[in-house]
């Protein structure tokens, strides 16, 4: 079974530019999550999709961040325009059901550096 994949693995952009991160969850997993980890800090929740619907987007920092999951398969997270504080590792995770009884499978992350 293929795991969660993310693309790109690294991205270095200048302040003000746009970046789009992609996540492909495990096939059949309806739940998809985005997280961000700034070095030395917690893995911070950004949002949760159930299929193509946003279940919870309370962790999205501001309206510069836009997440989509068309067709309930892969998801994209766009940052436009990027700011220095957006730097960090962005993780995507998927699970078969909600988090109460089932583990989340994490992808390897996209390391975003905004200069």
């Amino acid at each position, binding site marked *: 079974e293929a795991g969660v994949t993310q693309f790109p693995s690294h991205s270095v952009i200048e302040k003000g530019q746009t970046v789009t991160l992609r996540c492909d969850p495990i096939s059949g997993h309806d739940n998809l999550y985005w997280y961000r980890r700034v070095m030395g800090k917690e893995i911070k*929740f950004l949002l949760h999709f159930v299929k193509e619907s946003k279940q919870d987007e*309370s962790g999205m920092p501001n309206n510069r961040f836009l997440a989509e999951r068309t067709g309930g398969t892969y998801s994209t997270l766009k940052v436009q325009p990027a700011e220095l504080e957006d730097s960090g590792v962005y993780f995507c995770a998927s699970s078969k059901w909600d988090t*109460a009884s089932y583990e989340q499978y994490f992808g390897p992350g996209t390391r975003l550096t905004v200069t």
Partner: protein
Amino acid sequence: QQPVQSPQAVILREGEDAVINCSSSKALYSVHWYRQKHGEAPVFLMILLKGGEQKGHEKISASFNEKKQQSSLYLTASQLSYSGTYFCGTEGSGGYQKVTFGIGTKLQVIP
């Protein structure tokens, strides 16, 4: 509100034991434990549910004290492969809620 983990870092020799603690200020439904090796994806270790159900694998065990809103992860007879950052994630009670992760505990096992 994120859970508090302790210690923040620990160094062990192979074969030694370690305990990592996770506490929350709110009532919990479940506690999740993950381990992340440098540059890799966090990997699931265990889920502990309110009511005592426990799911996990490997030679790692954990406890969940619902009343104290605390969980502890027990690493017994540590191996070099145990090195990494351990995260606890907590889920509040009252239905589905997102998992909130702690800052992590960096564990290093040396020969």
